[in-house]
């Protein structure tokens, strides 16, 4: 997958490119908005990472063009962490906002989230018993409490919540959440399921995860 990187600092450009390559992406580099738009006449990208402060057309303007005209999701990168800038960023249509200095892992994490979110027709909201799952923000709401849990656990809970009362096999869970059905993840699945159970109980959820021996798991609504 190709990602456009626009930044006037050559080192940052290269750095982000290297980080993207390590994350399995291909990077397309531009030093300013002008060059970026020229490149996009012939090239296609899945998302763009844009620096706010650039000579010529600034990051906000470029973001507006990218999101409105070309339908490319944008992550804005800046040293300014201030609220007004953030608001300006979201106004111009950026999907996310990253403040310098950031960790490369964080950039990849956010990029993944955006790509997953963008253009994918998925049911964003799931509701079972007194819990609601928001697949775009990865929040679990139980009653008046919002819970943020590790991603893997969220995904497991989302799979179970999509079909409450139905048993989901361990194999399917491993495939969907870990991407492969491998024995080395078996233990991990158990641990995550146990933690998830504890969390649901502790925060007063009206659902319970039941183990179906030898098959998998099932989400039951408590009465």
């Amino acid at each position: 997958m190709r990602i456009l990187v626009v930044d006037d600092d050559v080192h940052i450009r290269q750095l982000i490119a290297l980080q993207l390559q390590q994350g399995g992406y291909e990077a397309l580099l531009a030093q300013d908005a002008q060059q970026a738009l020229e490149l996009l006449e012939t090239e296609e990208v899945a998302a763009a990472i844009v620096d706010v402060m650039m000579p010529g057309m600034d990051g906000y303007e470029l973001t507006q063009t990218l999101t409105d005209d070309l339908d490319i999701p944008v992550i804005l990168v800046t040293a300014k962490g201030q609220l007004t800038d953030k608001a300006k960023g979201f106004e111009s249509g950026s999907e996310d906002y990253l403040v310098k200095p950031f960790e490369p892992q964080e950039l990849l994490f956010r990029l993944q989230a955006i790509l997953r979110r963008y253009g994918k027709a998925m049911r964003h909201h799931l509701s079972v018993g007194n819990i609601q799952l928001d697949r775009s923000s990865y929040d679990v709401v139980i009653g008046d409490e919002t819970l943020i849990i590790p991603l893997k656990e969220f995904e497991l809970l989302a799979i179970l919540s999509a079909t409450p009362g139905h048993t989901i096999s361990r194999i399917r869970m491993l495939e969907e959440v870990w991407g492969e059905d491998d024995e080395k993840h078996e233990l991990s699945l158990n641990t995550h399921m146990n933690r998830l159970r504890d969390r649901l109980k502790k925060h007063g959820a009206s659902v319970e995860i039941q183990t179906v021996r030898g098959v998998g798991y099932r989400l039951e609504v408590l009465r």
Partner: protein
Amino acid sequence: MKSLYRQFVQTSGWFLILSVVIGLMITNIFYLAFTKQQTTEQNLTRAQEVTSILETMHGDAEALTPFLDSVANLGYQIVLADSEGSLQSFGKPFEDVVLSEEAQRVVSDGVIYTGEDGALSFFMTSHFANRITNTVGVPFEVDGEVYGLFLRPDLSLLSSDIHTLLLAFLLSIALVNLLGMLWMAKQLTKPIGLLRQATQEVANDNYSHSLGIERQDEIGELADSFNRMIERLRENDTARKTFITNVSHDLQSPLVNIRGYAELIENEADVNAPSYQHAKVIQQEATRLSGLAKQLLLLSSLDQPTYQLTLGQVELDKQLKQIVSSYRYRFEENQLEVSLKLERATIQADAELLEVVWDNLLSNATKYTQEGGQLAVIMETDASVVKIRIQDSGIGIAAQDLPHVTERFYRADLSRHTEGTGLGLAIVNEIVTLHKGTLQIESIEQEGTCVEVTLPIL
């Protein structure tokens, strides 16, 4: 506060009353000094004319009555006294048809009576009272009998028309004057109100406000120089903000590079190689330096004695939610469970600074909580305050460090963790204090820390 407009109206009112009093006093003096004398003399001439006619008529006593009746009809009040002391009124009768001792001497001694000053003679009104003491009296003889004639013009006939007109005239002058004053006061105080509003806007860091005052007088000049001042302030403010942004950008960009490339070295190096550790140290220090740069810039502006909060309505629950969600990655990295229990609350505050508070507190909580730990953000409100608690199950703060954590550059137990600048909580404390709130930190070592921020709703 007494408004300027009210003061103006009140003062005009007082002046109106005062002018009426002074006016009356002056007329009073004028009347007593000149007019009264004149009127008395005139009345006396009238009375003497009447009596001389009566004396030359050679009629008998019977003829007096119809004659005096007709004189009275011309607009006079007349009392006729005979030597036996009996009185007869012609025209509108007086309040009391009794002669004073002084008046009785007209008949008994044949002297001329020019009225008497009563107890309230300082006021001219007493001279208009419907009393015999305000008449002039002259003696005369008819048929060898001595009579006294007391006379004065009938004021009730005199006053009616012209006086009503005069009164209406005076009242309308007073009314028009008063209304004019009110209008003038409004005109003068309106631009002052506008100026006050504009200074408040400037105090809140809003320089886009322009005074809508177009006048050719001193107030117009004041408004012009005020607008020029705002223009200069706006330029200064923009320059300051641009400077901070530029400094921040120019500091952070190289730090991103240092950190990023150090990480690349770390990734390429063998875990056991010294270069792996060295790269890690470079990363950590670059992170610390970049945090320090940000915090010092913030502190340098907070420390200015003229620092003004940019107040606005802040929806705390939304703000907290937004910041917590920007921490997703860091939570994920440490496999933390984060629960939010937020009541809705909107307060008057500086949104940008409050964001710094939550950012610092969440950053601490994440930094000092072990993998798999828990974090809770709870906001409760009551009538006057909002309480925001950020609770973690982290390593906690030692009892001897707890009183010092809000001091600048204070860092507990340096050997344990090298991250952090020692400025985070100092900044939090400063911002909370600027919002007239309180910061309370409780901690048990190895069990966790709870930071409670209390902010007033108003």
